[in-house]
């Protein structure tokens, strides 16, 4: 299901336009108050823009001032920032609310609800009332509720904000799985979510889209201030091979993969430029990954300097540049510890 959106909201100073292709997952990044939730609200039909139009798969969602399709008829499901579980329903019935509303039988809805509760690892909470949940539990239920509605376009507003970091990886895997063949928009503050879940990224600042494009590109070469602040992750795609990733060009990069990935499955290795050390000779030591390459360019990156090569970047402090006499064209080794590299199924 593909989405086309243009909208302005005057009193929130919002003016945006973007699209989501069929089956694509779009991540919206941006600082607090940038208008991310507002954008989701406009798509979901609960915030009324002053002008604009949107269509989902060719069907008009709104075309102001003439048309306005109500929220329930849009085929979108929104998991808002505030979980807002229905206080009078049990957790199970909260999750079953979407299917039930779409006409599924009570039994079927319960079935589905149980399935999605299991997916978010909250089966044992099924019989509770929302008032008896912890903050993180409530958020997981809210995610399950949105997923259970099986929308044409899924809208997730910071689905992992209240989760403890030990469950975040599992949740991310689950989302990765369910978002794979779905059109979805996910608002997040964590670049890793964007990297792992999204095909494309939109960066918003003060109600405007300041950056947009394929995740890899935006994060590799952010042009906006916010983008630069959060982005710059190194990504290497390839196939899993003995816990490492082998790229099409034959490079192997080692890292930590949890859960383990079967060999020859597509996989991606992610690591931060700041974890990458620059050497002039291949060092002998613990770091498992050393890539011989050439400096492409040097650019300031905050208080540091970003050393760009063909494929990877490294952030180093200013004295390093002088000491190692870095300059475009110089042959270097980029070294990164395996324990700094996260490997995920792609």
């Amino acid at each position, binding site marked *: 299901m593909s989405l086309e959106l243009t909208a302005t909201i005057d009193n929130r100073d919002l003016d945006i336009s973007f699209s989501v292709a069929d089956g694509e997952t779009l991540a919206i990044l941006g600082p607090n108050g940038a208008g991310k939730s507002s954008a989701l609200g406009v798509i979901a039909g609960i915030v009324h823009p002053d002008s604009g139009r949107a269509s989902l798969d060719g069907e008009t969602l709104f075309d102001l001032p003439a048309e306005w399709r109500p929220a*329930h008829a849009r085929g979108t499901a929104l998991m*808002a920032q505030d979980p807002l579980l229905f206080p009078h329903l049990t957790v199970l019935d909260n999750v079953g*609310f979407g299917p039930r509303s779409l006409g599924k039988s009570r039994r079927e809805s319960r079935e589905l609800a149980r399935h999605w509760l299991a997916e978010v690892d909250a089966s044992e909470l099924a019989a509770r009332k929302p008032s008896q949940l912890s903050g993180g539990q409530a958020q997981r239920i809210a995610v399950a509720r949105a997923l259970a509605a099986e929308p044409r376009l899924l809208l997730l507003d910071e689905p992992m904000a209240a989760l403890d970091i030990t469950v975040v990886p599992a949740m991310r895997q689950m989302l990765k799985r369910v978002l794979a063949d779905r059109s979805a928009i996910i608002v997040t503050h964590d670049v890793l979510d964007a990297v792992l879940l999204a095909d494309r990224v939109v960066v918003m600042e003060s109600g405007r889209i300041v950056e947009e494009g394929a995740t890899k590109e935006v994060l590799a070469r952010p042009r906006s201030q916010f983008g630069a602040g959060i982005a710059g992750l190194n990504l290497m795609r390839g196939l899993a091979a003995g816990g490492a990733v082998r790229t099409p060009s034959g490079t192997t990069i080692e890292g930590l993969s949890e859960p383990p990935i079967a060999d020859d499955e597509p996989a991606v290795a992610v690591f931060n430029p700041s974890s990458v050390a620059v050497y002039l000779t291949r060092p002998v030591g613990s770091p498992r990954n050393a890539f011989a390459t050439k400096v492409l360019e040097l650019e300031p990156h905050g208080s540091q300097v970003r050393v760009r090569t063909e494929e990877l970047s490294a952030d180093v402090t200013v004295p390093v540049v002088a000491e190692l006499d870095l300059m475009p064209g110089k042959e270097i080794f980029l070294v990164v510890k395996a324990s700094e590299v996260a490997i995920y199924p792609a």
Partner: protein
Amino acid sequence: MSATTSVGIPRWIYVPAAVGALFIVLPLVALASRVEWSHFFSLITSDSSVAALKLSLRTSALSTLLCILFGVPMAIVLARTSFRGQSILRSLVLLPLVLPPVVGGIALLYTFGRKGLLGHTLDVLGIQIAFSTTAVVLAQAFVAMPFMVVSLEGTLRAAGQRYEVVAATLGARPTTVLRRVTLPLVLPGLAAGAILAFARSLGEFGATITFAGSLQGVTRTLPLEIYLQREGDPNAAVALSLVLVVVAVLVIGLVRRPRGGQL
């Protein structure tokens, strides 16, 4: 018991609350103290009393049903939409509250009576409302309706729309939202409205006598019976009132199982 605790209410508030409660309860005590208990049971089990009580309960239940069927939609329209003339409509709907019931009865006569606005239409349809139990129900519903509307509208507004919006984003059509979210959430207000409507119906006198008349078993409800008894024997009337009171307490008690305040 562990639970998120209530934060407590100011101590001093018990003082006006107690004064208020006394103000209501003392007269009831005074009333009860005047009843001649020796005659009480023979009195309240007389044919006419029992007939009146039964009729009252039946008609009040029906009129409460009408209030729910039509009052709830009105409250929702008033609380959840805005249109030109809404505040005028609201005031109009509240009018039976202030209209002296007798005048309300006259108005109903002018509308549903043989020579009333709809009288001819009803005649053609073969429907005779006046002097029937239907008239009693209509009279009660007319005076009780605003109670449901006002009480529920207040609750609807105070409850806000957050959960309704969430439900819509999950694909629930308005009817589903209404049934599965709005109504369950405002249940305390709806219950309050229904209790008020039932109580008002049970106590209704003026509009009934004017519009429906007073015939034993057909239109003479308990308040009418009490009023009549009073002409002869005021004490009998008081005793009968106590019956009404007891019935009301029972019915209200049944409807309103106190549930823990949700947090």
